[in-house]
Structure formats: structure tokens, C-alpha cells
């Protein structure tokens, strides 16, 4: 196998231990929020503490970024250390420490940055729960940020696992935040249980890494990789990437384990934005990028990642096309975009995958937050058929236009940030020497067109067109304070006029427009979405270095890609072409066509003549040979039902059988049956106990007489 270019060896730098504050601050904030919870604080103290802690954490990471000189390992304290011999496989060390390289910083920058922004947003969004669950919500956010930082910053796989489980816990707690609603509780459990399956893979992968390399520290693992020679075709080695990949698929909602993510939308929207779109679900991408050298040793492992990613992208996009709940559409688009990232990792461009993670974090957080603002203002209404033309409504312009930015970015509109990141992935796939990767590239392009369609389906329905809206049925998060908000509204001097079209159904309803905390965050995120395009512009127009590429190249993630570079070099010698054009030009043309084509279709079907969308659906349903397409898409390809039939049903049946056996054999025959024996014996003698005292005495005396007579008889006969 190929000798890898060496991963830069980390030096031990205890003087950088102040970076550990990025871990400590969210933890302290979590404790403070828990105290607020215990003391039943009515105000927004928890939000302020969280925002300050996360902002400070972001500041520390920025400082660390500017102080960065090379990969370092920062020990904090000795956590787990066992030794039962002197050999290589006779010790186990997992210290609480940090491994800081460019990949770490890259991830931490957007995790803490977006964490801060979304906390600010949530401070307004969750205000209806002040006193009730407000502190608990921010406690969850702090726990999440702490775990995510541990996951990214940790210097060994045990720290990563700790963070991995921690983010799963935070996700569970926050999805089930509204624990009075059975749907939210069920969604939380589903997310937790499906993640357990992936976590099993991750745990086994870590065990196998230790069993093969005798260490779980990144620096030692990478040193072992630098030495090379891990070319064994031993199953024990080749199984490692597959196990790690299973963990990544669980956390990042890829094909076998993706059904939990759409259900996770039951959580409050800031949670969906932060955890289930921008940060936690990218942990799988981080894991594979971090352990990339181990994947690179096994091309079939990378091919699996690519196939799973490509198919997930397509499947989720087709489901997203047919959903009516705005948050669900965005949830499926998240799965789809994560699929692109895995496709990028699989075809060998960690840069593309990680850059797409960054751009996606911004535009998807933005989209979710706009959806949350709409949900907040329209009493939980998220059905895109019941909202229309919001951009004409005063106070909703910022939401509408920032949503447009998010939609343009998601649909990879030409020369937006996502256009560059998606193209980096598709270019690598389309110019690959492997035919199946090229097929996946075309599949990705097709998916890009679908993405543009379903994204703009939402925007054209909700923000464009004539003004019309129906409020949601539920009081959303503030059933008790709707009145308050209205009063505030009026004092702000911009009461929303109830439009005539909505007047009959909603005579008492005034949508309350978002205030500065929501609007401000939306604007900053829209700006951020623009800014993350700069590395792409630099590369394309100024032919300068791409910042993201540099960041990834300096870390363990690019080393594997160094090996793929050989293939890339081979391919570029043959002047890779796309549709007969130079690869870059060709992909730009094809990508633009896909994106704009999708948007135009959405424009026609959902803005110009909205009836035609229904007509199209009816026309599809009329023809038996095509009927299955809309039906399957609307029913999410029946994946939940298939899982239900394949896994839940057999388990349920087994449980019923065992329960039956337990009730009727163990309890019925063994326990109750044994107990019936003395009862039956007792029944025989029951007539003796008639209640007359003399009867008892006579029985006793007679019994003794009989015994004495018998003994005497035996005794006398013995004498004879």
C-alpha cells in the first residue's frame, strides 16, 4: 500500500492550557443554569450566563486561532491511566487533554460562534417559558456546548466518546424539552435509541483501535500511521473504519440510521438549528475527517462512505420535496447535505466535506432560525400551504429576506458559498478514476437540482405570493403569555394589520413579529453565510489560497487525502473533463443549470400558478405506473414502517411471547401452582376445623391416643 505523507507531529505545550477554558466555561455555565433552575429564577439570568460563557469560549478559540503555530497536545490532568505490565498492549491512557490542530480550530470556531448566536436568538425565542423551562433549556445548551467542545478538542478517542455521548444526552434532553407532549418524548427516545446503535459501532471501533495500536491518543495513533506498515489485510484492521463509520452514520443521520433526525424537529427550533443542523450532526463528519488516515488505508471503506452519502443525499432530497412542514423540509435537507459531506469524504476530498460543513452550518442555522421566527410569530404554524406572502407583512421583511439568503445558499445558487463547497465535492467525484464515484457525482448533481426545487418551494410558498396566513392550532411555547406579547407589540407601535383574506378565520390573531434578538441574529447569520464564501471567491477569482483548504491541509484530515492526491494527479494528467469541457468550467455550467433549473421549476409550480402543483400531483397519482413516486415520497419511502416491521415488530412479538410465558408458565404454573398445593392439602383437612373447641381437643387427644396405641403395638410386638 502507499506510504502516507507524514502527519505533523504534535508537540506537548502545557502553556496553552488556557484553551481549556473553552471547555470549562460552558460547564460552569451549565452549573449556573442548573442553580437558576433549582432556585426557580423567573428572569433571563440563565440566558445571559449562557451567552456570556459561550461568547467567552468563542473568544478563547479566536485567540487560540491567532496564537496557532502548529499541532499541539495540551495536557490538562491525568484522567484514566492503567498499567498492568510494561509491554505495548499492557497500559491504557486517556488523559483529559486537548489536541489542537487546524481541524480542531476550524470546527471549534463555528461550533462556539454559532452556539453564541443561537443562544442570543433563543433568549428571545424561549421567553414564553421564563420561569418554567427557560433555565432548563439553557442548561441543555451549555451541556451540549461542553460536550461538543470535549468531542472536538479532546486529545484521545475516549474524550471524543465522552463528548459524543454528551451531545447525544443534550440532544435527547432538548428534543424532549417539551416533555408534556408525547410526540416530543417519543422523538427524544427515538433519537437516543437510534444513536445508541451508531455509538455501539464507535465504541467497538475504539476498542479495535486499542487492540491493534495499543493506544487511543491521537498523537500516538498518527505517529503509528506515519511509520506506515499498517497494510495488513487482517480483518481486525479493516473492520476499524467500518465500525467508526457506523458511529458517524448514527450521529450524522445517514442511511441506515437517519429516521431520528426529522422527528427531532419536535424540539424547540433553536435546538434544531444548533444541534440538529449546524453542529452535532457534523460530529460524524468530524470523526471521519479526524480518523481519515485509517479510512484511507481501506478504499472499500471510503467507497462505502461515498455510496451511503450519495444515496442518503438523494433519498432525503426526494422526501423533502413532498413534505409540507417547513421544519421537516429543512430537516430532510440537512440529512441530504450531510449526505454530500459523506460523499465528499468518501471520494477523497476532506476539504470539500469540511468546507461544506462550514457553509452548511451557517445557511442551515439561518434557515431553521427563520422557520423558528415564523413558528414563534404564527402560533406554531409551519404548514407551508397555510402561510403565504410573508414578505409583505410589516415586521417580517428581515425574516423573509434572510430566509431567501438561506434558500439561495442551500440551493447552491451560483457564486454563493455553498456553490463552491458543493462543487468541491462534486468535482472530486466527477473527476474520479472510479466509475461508481463518477456515477455518484452525477447523482449528486441531480440531487442538487432537487434541493434547489424543494428549497424554493418553501420560499415561494411562504414568503412570496399574495399575503395570507392561518395561525397554528397550538399556543406554541407561550400559551399563557400570548397576551403579553401582544401588549408589547402595541407599545412598539407596529401592530400587524390582520389582512382581509385571513380576517375571517383569524379575527383575534395578530402575528407578533420578531424583535431585535431574533432579527439581529438572522442578519449576522446571513452576513456569516456571505463571509464563509470568501475562501471560495479567493480561490476562484483571485487564485489565492483557500483558507478552508489550508486549515484542513494542516491537520490529520488531509493526510489521507494526500494519498488520494496521487489519484487526482493521475486524473489531472488526463485532463479530467466534464461534458467535454474543462472540469471546473464544466461543473460550473452543470451546477448552475441544476440550481437555476430547480429554482425555475419551483417558481412555476409554487408561485406563478400554484394550482399546477396540485394538478401535477393529481396527474401523477392518476397514472398507475408513476403513482408510487409521489406516494412513496410523501410517506418518506416507508422507511419508518419498514424499520417498524423488521425490527420493532419482531421484538414486540418476542416480548409478547416472553411476557405470555412469564405470566402463564413462570407465574401461573411455577409460582401459583406451587402455592396451590398446600391449599389443596388444606382443603382435605378443613372439615376438622369446625369451630367447636371440644372438637379440636378431641381430635388432638384422639390423635395422641392413636400414636400411643401404635407405639405400644410396635413395642409389644417387638417383645414377642
Amino acid at each position, binding site marked *: 500500500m502507499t506510504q502516507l505523507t507524514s502527519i505533523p507531529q504534535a508537540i506537548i505545550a502545557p502553556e496553552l492550557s488556557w484553551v481549556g477554558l473553552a471547555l470549562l466555561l460552558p460547564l460552569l455555565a451549565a452549573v449556573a443554569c442548573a442553580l437558576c433552575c433549582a432556585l426557580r429564577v423567573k428572569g433571563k439570568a440563565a440566558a445571559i450566563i449562557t451567552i456570556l460563557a459561550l461568547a467567552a469560549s468563542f473568544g478563547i478559540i479566536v485567540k487560540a486561532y491567532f496564537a496557532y503555530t502548529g499541532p499541539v497536545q495540551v495536557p490538562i490532568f491525568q484522567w484514566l491511566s492503567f498499567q498492568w505490565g510494561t509491554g505495548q498492549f499492557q497500559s491504557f491512557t486517556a488523559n483529559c487533554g486537548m489536541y489542537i490542530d487546524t481541524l480542531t480550530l476550524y470546527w471549534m470556531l463555528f461550533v462556539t460562534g454559532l452556539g453564541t448566536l443561537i443562544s442570543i436568538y433563543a433568549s428571545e425565542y424561549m421567553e414564553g417559558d421564563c420561569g418554567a423551562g427557560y433555565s432548563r433549556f439553557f442548561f441543555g445548551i451549555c451541556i451540549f456546548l461542553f460536550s461538543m467542545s470535549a468531542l472536538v478538542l479532546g486529545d484521545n478517542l475516549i474524550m471524543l466518546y465522552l463528548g459524543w455521548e454528551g451531545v447525544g444526552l443534550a440532544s435527547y434532553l432538548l428534543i424532549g424539552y417539551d416533555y408534556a407532549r408525547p410526540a416530543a418524548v417519543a422523538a427524544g427516545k427515538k433519537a437516543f435509541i437510534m444513536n445508541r446503535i451508531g455509538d455501539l459501532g464507535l465504541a467497538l471501533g475504539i476498542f479495535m483501535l486499542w487492540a491493534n495500536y495499543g493506544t487511543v491518543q491521537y498523537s500516538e495513533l498518527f505517529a503509528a500511521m506515519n511509520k506506515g506498515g499498517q497494510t495488513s489485510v487482517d480483518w481486525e484492521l479493516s473492520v476499524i473504519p467500518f465500525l467508526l463509520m457506523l458511529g458517524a452514520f448514527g450521529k450524522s443521520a445517514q442511511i441506515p440510521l437517519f429516521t431520528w433526525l426529522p422527528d427531532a424537529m419536535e424540539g424547540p427550533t433553536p435546538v434544531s438549528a444548533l444541534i440538529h443542523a449546524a453542529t452535532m450532526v457534523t460530529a460524524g463528519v468530524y470523526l471521519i475527517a479526524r480518523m481519515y488516515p485509517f479510512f484511507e488505508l481501506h478504499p472499500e471503506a471510503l467507497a462505502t462512505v461515498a455510496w451511503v452519502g450519495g444515496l442518503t443525499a438523494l433519498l432525503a432530497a426526494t422526501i423533502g420535496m413532498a413534505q409540507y412542514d417547513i421544519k421537516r423540509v429543512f430537516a430532510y435537507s440537512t440529512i441530504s447535505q450531510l449526505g454530500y459531506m459523506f460523499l465528499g469524504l468518501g471520494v477523497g476530498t476532506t476539504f470539500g466535506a469540511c468546507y461544506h460543513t462550514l457553509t452548511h452550518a451557517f445557511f442551515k442555522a439561518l434557515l431553521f432560525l427563520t422557520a423558528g421566527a415564523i413558528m414563534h410569530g404564527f402560533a406554531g404554524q409551519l404548514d407551508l400551504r397555510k402561510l403565504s406572502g410573508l414578505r409583505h407583512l410589516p415586521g417580517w421583511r428581515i425574516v423573509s429576506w434572510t430566509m431567501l439568503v438561506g434558500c439561495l445558499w442551500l440551493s447552491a445558487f451560483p457564486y454563493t458559498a455553498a456553490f463552491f463547497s458543493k462543487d468541491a465535492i462534486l468535482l472530486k467525484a466527477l473527476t474520479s478514476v472510479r466509475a461508481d464515484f463518477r456515477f455518484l457525482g452525477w447523482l449528486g448533481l441531480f440531487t442538487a437540482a432537487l434541493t434547489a426545487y424543494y428549497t424554493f418551494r418553501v420560499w415561494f410558498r411562504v414568503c412570496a405570493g399574495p399575503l395570507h396566513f392561518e395561525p397554528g392550532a397550538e399556543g406554541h411555547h407561550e400559551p399563557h403569555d400570548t397576551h403579553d406579547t401582544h401588549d408589547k407589540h402595541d407599545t412598539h407601535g407596529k401592530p400587524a394589520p390582520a389582512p382581509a383574506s385571513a380576517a375571517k378565520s383569524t379575527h383575534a390573531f395578530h402575528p407578533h413579529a420578531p424583535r431585535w434578538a431574533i432579527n439581529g441574529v438572522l442578519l449576522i447569520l446571513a452576513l456569516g453565510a456571505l463571509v464563509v464564501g470568501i475562501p471560495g471567491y479567493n480561490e476562484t477569482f483571485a487564485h489565492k489560497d483557500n483558507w478552508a483548504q489550508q486549515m484542513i491541509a494542516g491537520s490529520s484530515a488531509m493526510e489521507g487525502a494526500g494519498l488520494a492526491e496521487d489519484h487526482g494527479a493521475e486524473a489531472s494528467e488526463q485532463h479530467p473533463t466534464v461534458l467535454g469541457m474543462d472540469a471546473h468550467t464544466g461543473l460550473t455550467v452543470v451546477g448552475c443549470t441544476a440550481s437555476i433549473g430547480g429554482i425555475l421549476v419551483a417558481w412555476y409550480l409554487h408561485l406563478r400558478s400554484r394550482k399546477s402543483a396540485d394538478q401535477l400531483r393529481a396527474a401523477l397519482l392518476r397514472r398507475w405506473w408513476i403513482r408510487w413516486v409521489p406516494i412513496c415520497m410523501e410517506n418518506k419511502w416507508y422507511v419508518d414502517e419498514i424499520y417498524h416491521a423488521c425490527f420493532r415488530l419482531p421484538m414486540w412479538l418476542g416480548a409478547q411471547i416472553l411476557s405470555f410465558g412469564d405470566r402463564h408458565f413462570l407465574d401461573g404454573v411455577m409460582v401459583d401452582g406451587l402455592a396451590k398445593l398446600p391449599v389443596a392439602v388444606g382443603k382435605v383437612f378443613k372439615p376438622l376445623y369446625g*369451630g*367447636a373447641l371440644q372438637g379440636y*381437643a378431641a381430635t388432638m387427644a384422639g390423635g395422641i391416643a392413636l400414636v400411643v396405641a401404635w407405639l405400644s403395638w410396635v413395642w409389644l410386638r417387638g417383645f414377642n
Partner: protein
Amino acid sequence: MNQELSSGFTIAANAPIAVALAISALLFVIGLVGFLCRRNMIIMFLCTELMFQGAALAMIAFARLRMDVSGQVFVIFILTVAAAEAALALALVVLLYRKRETLSADAWSDLGES
């Protein structure tokens, strides 16, 4: 202890064991028959005491026969316990009387199984 008294006891002390056992059996049977035939709870209780004494007398007789004091010790012990138990049983009888306003054991036959 004067001579007369001690000589007065010698007859009994020298009596054959069969006499003592016969008296013991007699006491026991009187108690048993009384217990079975009478309904008054106090009488029934006295009958049990009588059976007790019959058994105790047999034990003393055997102790004398074997010249072993442990039988007598045992009887003293039984008498003590019986005294305590008598107090308890009489209290019980008083309570039962208060409940049903009668001393007849038949009044309580509804405690039986059938």
C-alpha cells in the same frame, strides 16, 4: 423439718411408682374429660391446669425413681410458666366474656373454617 412430718411423708415417698403414675393418669384424664365435656371457658381452663399437674406429677415420680433432680427442676419451671400463662389466659377469658357477654366456648365457634 420435724420428724413427724418427715415420717408422715415417708409412706408416700416409699409408695411404688405405679401409685404415683396412676394418680397422675387420673388427674390427666379428669382434666381431659372435663375439657371435652364442659363449655364454660374458665372450667375448661382449670381442666387444662389439671392436665398440666398430672403430667408434672408423673415427672416428679420418675425423678424420684431415678433419683435425679432435673425432673423436679423441670416441674418447678413448668409451675412458674403455668402461673404466668394462667394470668394471661384469665385476662383473655375476661376479654372474650366482654365481647359476647357469655363464658360459653360455643359462642366462638364461628371462628372455625366451616
